[in-house]
């Protein structure tokens, strides 16, 4: 099991206020077996230390991949928080919640409760990709925030909205990035979530993508 954790902060938070962007997609893996490998490969290719430019390129490539896989995404969730008082908390909350569900990074082994005997069914259809950013509230975040403002309530879970959001992520200015994180669950090359898994407690915030 691999863990590279949250990317180290390249630029510490300055006096600017921060904003949060979070995206989570549940992608049907069974359609194309190579999906997980492609995501893992992209992430694995990322160096430990990155310049802002390299980080932009990395997320641009990830975004392009997600755009390509978007037709296979069945559930999702996204949020943009422009309240500087809660943005950092929101980022940390997302990280903590995802992290708490992930495996022990020291041992690299599976958690005790993650084995097929405990599961309702053993189908491994879905993988979950999460992108999180804590950004200074400068131009690129403002632009993304304007996009979020422009989304009609009825279109929040539309596939085109997710597509537009990911397009916005391609344009993030990483010189203003305070923290960022990417997670793919499950983290091994063979496992996956079943339809039943996605309906267990803890995933109820996810919305079908139309």
């Amino acid at each position: 099991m691999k863990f590279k954790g949250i990317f180290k902060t390249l630029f510490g938070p300055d006096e600017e206020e921060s904003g949060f962007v979070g995206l989570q997609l549940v992608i049907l893996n069974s359609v194309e077996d190579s999906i997980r490998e492609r995501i893992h490969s992209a992430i694995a290719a990322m160096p430990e230390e990155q310049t802002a430019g390299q980080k932009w390129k990395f997320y641009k490539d990830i975004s392009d991949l997600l755009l390509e896989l978007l037709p296979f995404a069945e559930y999702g969730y996204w949020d943009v928080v422009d309240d500087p008082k809660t943005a950092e908390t929101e980022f940390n909350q997302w990280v903590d919640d995802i992290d708490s569900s992930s495996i022990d990074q020291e041992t690299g082994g599976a958690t005790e409760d993650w084995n097929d005997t405990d599961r309702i069914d053993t189908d491994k259809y879905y993988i979950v990709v999460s992108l999180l950013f804590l950004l200074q509230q400068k131009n690129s975040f403002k632009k993304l925030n304007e996009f979020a403002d422009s989304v009609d309530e009825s279109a929040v879970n539309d596939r085109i909205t997710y597509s537009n959001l990911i397009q916005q992520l391609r344009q993030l200015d990483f010189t203003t990035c305070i923290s960022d994180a990417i997670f793919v669950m499950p983290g091994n090359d063979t496992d996956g979530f079943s339809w039943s898994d996605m309906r267990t407690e803890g995933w109820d915030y996810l919305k079908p993508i139309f």
Partner: protein
Amino acid sequence: MDHNYSVGTPVKVKAGFHDKETEIEMSGWTGRVSEVEGNQVLVEFDNETIEEFPDEYVMHQMDNERDSNSYWFYYQALTPFASGKASEKTSSFTEAKPVSRRKALGKVLAWTGGTALAGYLLYQCVSDDDDVTVTEEDSVGLQKKEGWDTGADGMKVALAAPMSLDYLGLPETQWKKYKEADNLKKVYTPATDNFKKYSSNSLFESLGQKTLQAQMKPSANIDTKTTFKKGLGVRQILLDAQNPEVNLVVIDLPGQQSVAVAAALADVADVIPTFNNWPHPLGEVPAHETLASSIYYASYVDREKNKKTTKKKATVLALDRNRFQSAKDGKLTPVKEGNFDNRYNVDLPTVDELKAAGITNVVYITPSETDIEKDDINEEFATYREKGIEVAMLPISRFEETKEQVAATSDPKRTGQYATNYYYGGSPLGAMFFFYHYPMYRSFNRTSIPSGANSRFSRAPAYTPTRRPTSFASRSVGGKGGFGKSRPTGFGKVTVNRSMSTGKTVGFGSSFRSSYRSGGGSRSGSFGRSRGGGFFS
């Protein structure tokens, strides 16, 4: 300065221009001038250009802590983009000064701060696509400042049923005085100071706008006229009641109908209007209809409210049920695309204020039995009930028509003819059941139902206001019973696109953005806690 570029000018990079550091060709890149310093101009690139940036360019700029989305050029490297057809000679001037992110932003802020928006600016940024600044402002505040039809200059409001005569049949020469803001305010100003702070004359004040005033006429469609007659049925009940003063009546019907019922009660009640918005040609709330209805009934109200009476009057709050829309889950319905957000919410008196005024019950007049209280007053109604103030629903639909011969005493010219009147339950006898269904009212005249009398209704609607999640709940800032509750984010506000060059408003959009983001904050701290699984990052 040897050029005419100014802030907002759309420009295009001339053919052959290269970034000196990366050698990346920037020919044809387009954007707008955001700052000018002598012979150099800062260009903010537009979306089309940004999307086509070469990776090497963006990475280089970011690695040098520069904003890749803007660039300092000498003016000779640029050509105006709007004219577009200007010859694009290869620039011989290839020096350019890359801009550092920090420097660029600081200057942009200095520039935007220089526009004349101080005092009501909530946020401001620069649109990438247009020569505009974008601000978020209070809707009525903006209209007062820039005109009732701001952003839609020249457009007119469309009245559903404009009339040349008002309710009393008076011609324009006699009703036009009610198109004066001060006169209309006076007509609808409550006679007493009871609950004065809950009164709003904002709608009537909009007639101070001459171009709006010129468009306004009395208006009442068939629904409004019918509702007025139903209001007369309510009036009869208040006349028959011994104790109208202990019951607060809250009329919550579509604005023009709310005015109609309020007008019908003019001589038996002290009516408090709560219409706290202005009309707009593209208004989300059809406030112009409420205003036109107010003009239609103004001469009648003016006459009736000043009649001498020894009978105690009821206190009536008139609300516009169209003041906003929300879904069953309590989320506000966003303003329709292109509409002007003139929504608003109302506050109601606190329990202590009601008790101090001797009021022990609230009668809530709704369109029908399925129309429960609106989200903005749910908290007040629930509190009333919890604190011993009974709240009863009175659907106006329960006032049904009946044909009656006109009595000589009421209209000698029509004696013997049949008129359509509206009574609770559809008949004068049925109206007696009202006092059994609504025991907070005590009848003067009748203590028992005559044998043979029937009512279509067996009881008042089963209605118990219950606290529920709304966009307004738990937002009270005044502490007591919800007075002073704040509006949800963006509610009743508009984002204003203002021309940089002319300063005029050129468009707007809704600022509403409360909990409609995906998931709506319902994660409950259990994000992603499915069992096990790995992760990869």
